[in-house]
């Protein structure tokens, strides 16, 4: 075991896989000389050279499009969107091209590509440096969309993503890049893309979360435990594929479910999870499935009280958990 931060886990895993497999190339803005704005590829250009660690102009559509072509050509590219917010020019390539390539070629070829996106608020980034983008992509068959939030999960799942035969949107919550640390198993450790993970066991209510919301939910669960309410916390670290089995098993166990996410509440991941529980576990429910999501405004506001108002927090989650427990 080695203790590291989330961002260190991304860095170390990429480093190891780039050493292991020469087909990996990295494309993105400022990933080379600067080592990435979050230092994820620090030292890479020195070790792997400018042929593999490619500083591109500001052109997200082509960063991803070229990575798709290179993947089909036999490489295993990693494309970095510097912030998830800048994904939009690349959306066309990801959704219309990468996701469909295997299907439309009737399985003849696919796109082994990892698109990394630092996402989420809580960094005073305001309207264009705070966004949640998971729902856009989780809606699309042909893509895999994961959002691991602990160093061990990031390590295991990034390794799997890099070895996967299909395109993976790999979401890294940037507000917990450095604040979250944890032990990572040494060696060639992988976690498949798909399974959810029960991060805390409790008999009274079940909370589903990912990203920074997961850590806030765990903190909120501790507060409730002090009052005698025991919460299960499920880390929905993979959104597509979604682990229906674990989601339903944990729902049935307590009969009271809350989904917490930072993205705009309507049409977000919470809606899908809630619908799944309502459809499949209705008979076992003791309360309506509840959601705590972001407000219905189009982007993250700037100043601190405003951003706090938007973001999930242990306090807000604890209030909702108590409401659910008392139902």
């Amino acid at each position: 075991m080695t203790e590291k931060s989330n961002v260190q886990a991304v860095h170390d895993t990429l480093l190891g896989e780039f050493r292991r497999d020469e087909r990996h190339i990295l494309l993105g803005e400022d990933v080379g000389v600067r080592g990435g704005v979050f230092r994820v590829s620090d030292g890479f250009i020195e070790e792997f050279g400018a042929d593999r660690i490619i500083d591109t102009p500001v052109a997200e559509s082509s960063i991803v499009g070229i990575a798709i072509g290179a993947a089909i050509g036999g490489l295993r590219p990693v494309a970095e969107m510097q912030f998830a917010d800048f994904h939009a020019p690349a959306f066309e390539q990801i959704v219309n091209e990468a996701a469909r390539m295997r299907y439309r070629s009737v399985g003849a070829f696919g796109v082994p590509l990892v698109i990394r996106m630092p996402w989420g608020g809580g960094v005073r980034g305001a309207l264009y440096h705070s966004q949640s983008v998971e729902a856009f992509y989780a809606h699309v068959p042909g893509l895999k969309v994961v959002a691991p939030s602990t160093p061990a999960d990031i390590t295991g799942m990034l390794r799997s993503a890099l070895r996967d035969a299909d395109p993976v949107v790999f979401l890294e919550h940037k507000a917990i890049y450095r604040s979250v640390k944890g032990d990572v198993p040494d060696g060639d450790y992988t976690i498949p893309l798909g399974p959810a993970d029960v991060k805390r066991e409790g008999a009274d209510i079940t909370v589903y979360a990912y990203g920074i919301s997961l850590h806030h939910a765990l903190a909120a669960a501790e507060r409730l435990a002090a009052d005698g309410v025991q919460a299960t916390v499920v880390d929905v670290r993979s959104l597509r594929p979604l682990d229906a089995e674990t989601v339903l098993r944990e729902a049935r166990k307590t009969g009271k479910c809350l989904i917490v996410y930072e993205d705009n509440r309507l049409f977000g991941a919470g809606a899908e999870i809630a619908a799944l529980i309502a459809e499949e576990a209705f008979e076992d429910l003791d309360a309506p499935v509840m959601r705590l999501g972001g407000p219905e405004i189009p982007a993250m506001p700037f100043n601190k009280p405003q951003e706090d108002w938007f973001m999930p927090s242990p306090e807000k989650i604890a209030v909702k958990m108590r409401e659910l427990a008392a139902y």
Partner: protein
Amino acid sequence: MSALDRATALELYRVMRTIRQFEARAVQLFGENKIWGTIHSYAGQEGVAVGVCAHLRDDDWITSTHRGHGHCIAKGADVGRMFAELLGRETGYCRGRGGSMHIADTSKGNLGANGIVGGGIPIATGAALTATYTGSDRVAVSFFGDGGANQGTLHESMNLAAIWKLPVLFVCENNQYAETNPVKDAFAVEDISLRAAGYGMPGVRVNGQDVRETYRVAADAVARARSGLGPTFIVAETYRYEGHYYGDPQVYRTKDEIEDWRAKRDPLVIARTWLTTDRLASEADLARVDREVDAEIEKGVAFAEAGEPASPIRLPEDVYAG
């Protein structure tokens, strides 16, 4: 050189000085932890925004960038409301919702700074379409960097503007870097203005450090646009003094390079020199302008600091018209 009258010449200097002092003060406030997030300083590039915007009326439009303070000031923004926005106050241009990168002022035709590189280019082009459609002589200017010049939006918009003969100026501020990426790694040509030929519009390369030059080039381009002759692509060679953002370690450039630009090509020093040698202003005139600008900046900061911190209460407003 087309002769500049005294009043115009001194006004160009005043606006450049206002931008320079605004940035100096913003950096100071940032250092005092009064500004959250990031700010991108326009210091060093003053000659571009000022030379171009001097030809614009309040009903002409601009779109700006993440490095937008200079464009806002040159298009007539109030520095008090700008500081207030940087400080996240109710009295700011976006009521504290936006911060540095999102200042807009439609009463002056400023359609906004923009956190998305390349995001403003088609918007300026569309504003120009409005002018054509309504038969007015309004023009639009899109400012963007060398980095922005490599987004697809510029290429699509330049083509459309050329085939539709829209009254728009595409103003590329080549400050030599896009974050850490030097232009030599991002362009296969040394002269970016060559691109204009491929779209069928005039392309002009200009020294962005001499406001007389940008003023002259923009005069022609704006006149062309107003009279229905279509778009112009202007590439202003310039330099940003600060890092990409405040606190950037700047591993991609040398101290010597920065010092060289500051010492030999500073737009304010250059302007002071010709203002005095051409007898358009005396040292005393310039000192007076400097004092007035300093007072305006301090007044602006005081206004901003007196403003209420923006509260979340009104955040649900303005998502839709009704």
